[in-house]
């Protein structure tokens, strides 16, 4: 039975390659080689820690723990990426849960991601196996670490699968993304905090390692060192902790698996009912009218739909708090441009957000005036809150960091970046549309298989657009610092003019492209329904 699972997974892993031919296959092979080289370098880098044994163990204890957390969170954020690990697919087959669990474990360890992890872990074994006589022990430890990661990750995702199959659960899952983002911010603050004497990071890692070595992944990283120095008592304790962790994870997975096979979750439990807000009376006549109708709907959905709400909460943190915490000294106001670019990104993939629901617009938005109105409507849904967030962030930073003299230039650069990325995001919506998974299982599962390249091009393109449009204002800003402060005001005017121009051009080009390619765009974005 395990062989059947293994061959099923192997077919799925290789089917993508088999299905492609010609140039695409060549590119996939090139990509695989590049990734293999990157992973090889990573493994080599980790392996070189062998040269500094006093740091190797504490660093790897932290890395092992981080790796485990990464494995646990990935399926929660992108559950459903791999159907061979979804227990619901096997519920109707006459397979005992124990056999199924072993089979699912097999499918979980076959794949590019586990392989890459294993290669890097070999590097870790080289680093930990000092002297070489304990290398076999280190090797056993890294194999156990991979098993621990896989088993715990499956246990977590299986026990969450019931929750994630209801809309209410998925909506709650969106909040997880925000929590992780805030945790990242806290982490950055911690290592980048006021205690910048150069030793903070080092003492932080050593301190963390002293605690983490009593957790299963930490114990596995510490074990070879303990064996090497002959501390058999601690080594036995570490081994017990690691094995107990693995057994506990296996048990948790088995319980969750048995439950998930016989429980049908509610799929219709609603999260947020529609409010009875005031009735919108704008009418889709002319560009302005259509823009008001479209923006009215977008405004409602930003409040109601977690997929649209959570990014804005993150953006507020990213735009206001991130420059404040990370960029020290004067000039931090310009770091707001980073968040501004991503505020503009909220106008991205306008035609793909609703999946095949786009047909409703295909039936109603049929002329250039309405098509332009739609683009403007989506754009102002990103621009209005984006402008508020950017201005508040600049104001706070200018006051706290006493950066008043940079105020006009910062507004010019940041608003140009906002408008530029909004314009680029709009145009790319029609030029490089991509399907968004409509099952909404994850905040970060933003593309469907086969369209990852499109998603990447669209994402990088809008950043490029923001940078390009902000460039004239940025040049004027440099002049304001080197030649005369009056250039700051020039930057403000340049930023606003370039931004407005970019938006005007983008609205026309996007609308034309949408009308010319409506059925093709519809075919591309409809793929989101199936995921």
């Amino acid at each position, binding site marked *: 039975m395990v062989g059947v699972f293994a061959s099923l997974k192997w077919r799925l892993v290789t089917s993508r390659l088999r299905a492609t031919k010609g140039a695409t296959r060549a590119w996939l092979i090139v990509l695989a080689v590049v990734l293999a080289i990157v992973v090889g370098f990573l493994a080599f880098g980790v392996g070189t820690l062998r040269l500094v044994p006093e740091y190797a163990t504490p660093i790897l204890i932290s890395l092992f723990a981080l790796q485990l957390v990464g494995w646990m969170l990935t399926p929660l954020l992108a559950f459903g990426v791999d159907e061979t690990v979804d227990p619901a697919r096997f519920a109707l087959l006459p397979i005992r849960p124990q056999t199924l669990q072993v089979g699912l474990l097999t499918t979980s360890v076959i794949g590019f991601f586990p392989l890459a992890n294993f290669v890097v872990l070999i590097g870790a074994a080289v680093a930990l196996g000092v002297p070489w006589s304990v290398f076999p022990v280190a090797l056993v430890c890294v194999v156990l670490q991979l098993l621990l990661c896989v088993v715990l990750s499956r246990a977590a995702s299986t026990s969450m699968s019931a929750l994630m199959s209801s809309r209410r659960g998925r909506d709650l899952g969106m909040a997880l993304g925000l929590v992780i983002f805030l945790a990242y911010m806290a982490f950055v603050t911690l290592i980048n905090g006021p205690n910048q004497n150069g030793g903070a990071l080092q003492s932080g890692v050593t301190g963390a390692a002293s605690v983490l070595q009593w957790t299963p992944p930490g114990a596995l990283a510490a074990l070879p060192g303990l064996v090497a120095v002959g501390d058999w008592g601690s080594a036995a304790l570490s081994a017990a902790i690691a094995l107990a962790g693995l057994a506990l994870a296996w048990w948790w997975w088995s319980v969750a698996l048995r439950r998930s096979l016989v429980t049908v979750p509610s799929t219709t439990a609603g999260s947020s009912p529609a409010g009875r807000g005031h009735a919108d009376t704008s009418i889709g006549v002319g560009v302005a009218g259509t823009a008001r109708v479209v923006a009215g709907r977008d405004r409602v959905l930003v409040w109601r739909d977690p997929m649209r709400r959570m990014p804005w909460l993150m953006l507020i943190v990213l735009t206001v708090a991130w420059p404040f915490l990370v960029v020290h000294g004067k000039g931090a106001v310009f770091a707001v441009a980073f968040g501004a670019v991503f505020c503009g990104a909220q106008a991205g993939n306008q035609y793909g957000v609703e999946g095949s629901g786009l*047909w409703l617009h295909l039936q*109603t938005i049929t002329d250039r005036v309405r098509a332009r109105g739609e683009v403007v409507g989506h754009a102002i849904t990103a621009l209005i809150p984006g402008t508020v967030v950017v201005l508040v962030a600049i104001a706070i930073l200018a006051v706290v960091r006493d950066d008043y003299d940079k105020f006009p230039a910062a507004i010019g650069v940041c608003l140009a970046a906002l408008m530029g990325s909004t314009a680029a995001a709009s145009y790319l919506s029609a030029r490089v549309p991509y399907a968004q998974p409509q099952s909404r299982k994850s905040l970060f599962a933003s593309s469907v298989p086969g369209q990852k390249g499109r998603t990447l091009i669209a994402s990088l393109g809008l950043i490029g657009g923001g940078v390009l449009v902000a460039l004239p204002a940025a040049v004027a800003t440099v002049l304001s610092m080197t030649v005369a402060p009056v250039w700051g005001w020039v930057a403000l005017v340049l930023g606003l003019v370039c931004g407005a121009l970019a938006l005007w051009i983008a609205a026309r080009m996007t609308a034309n492209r949408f009308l010319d390619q409506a059925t093709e765009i519809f075919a591309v974005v409809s793929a989101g329904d199936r995921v």
Partner: protein
Amino acid sequence: MGNPITNSNQDPLSATNPPSNAAIPMYPGASDLVRQVAGQALALRGLTKSFGGKPAVDHIDLDVPVGSFFGLVGPNGAGKTTTLSMVTGLLTPDEGRVILAGVDVWTDPTAAKARMGVLPDGLRLFERLSGPELLSYLGRLRGMPADVVAARSAELIRVLDLDEAGNKLVADYSTGMRKKVTLAAALLHSPAVLLLDEPLEAVDPVSARIIRNVLSRYTAGGGTVIFSSHVMALVEGLCSHVAVMAGGRIIAAGELAAVRGSAPSLDDAFMHLVGAADVEEGGLSWLGSSPA
């Protein structure tokens, strides 16, 4: 059939010169055809669509008289949904003409789409809006006055028995409710032609009765309904006209009685037309004999 609409079958979004409604020329004879089919709610001429070189719809001609209740029937994969997608402007044809209510759908989509109401099968709606919000949004997007939209959508919601939906999001609607709210959206602007793809598929009997009543009332008022289905009894009970599709072609079309001919039911006539056979006697003898 005049000059065909042509379309590249390459990766559509990488095409440098995309086919477009703007790019489609007003070819000679276009207005002649429109005049010729003046009495028809829908006229198809040489409509063709291939996927990967395999024809899904193969040069079909079809006339649907004004005021008829027209059933498009055929087995799965016959090309019904592909045909309706090309008629409704959701799929660009490779060749052919679609004249709906006197307007060429692919040369004047704005006028054509104002005259049609569409209920597609299996497509999503704006899921996070409630039914009333969806109707209000679509009505206003069409440029209808807000008070007219409000009055009509309130009446449609009452008639289609969607009151219970209240402020529930479309995402939480049952299949029957989804079909009904889509039908309401299709009727909102009082179109001349309704195009419905499997309108009663997976719908409970109560909702099905309501939908049938509304459609009958619509045709009684002079509207034309064109709907696809593979439920023969339904087509036989509702339709005045029928077309049978198989393998991407129309193999019979006309008034229901004419298509049925001497067969005892439309079902029998259909089986004969598409060349399907019952399971032969003696086949599958192992069924039910032992568990695997």
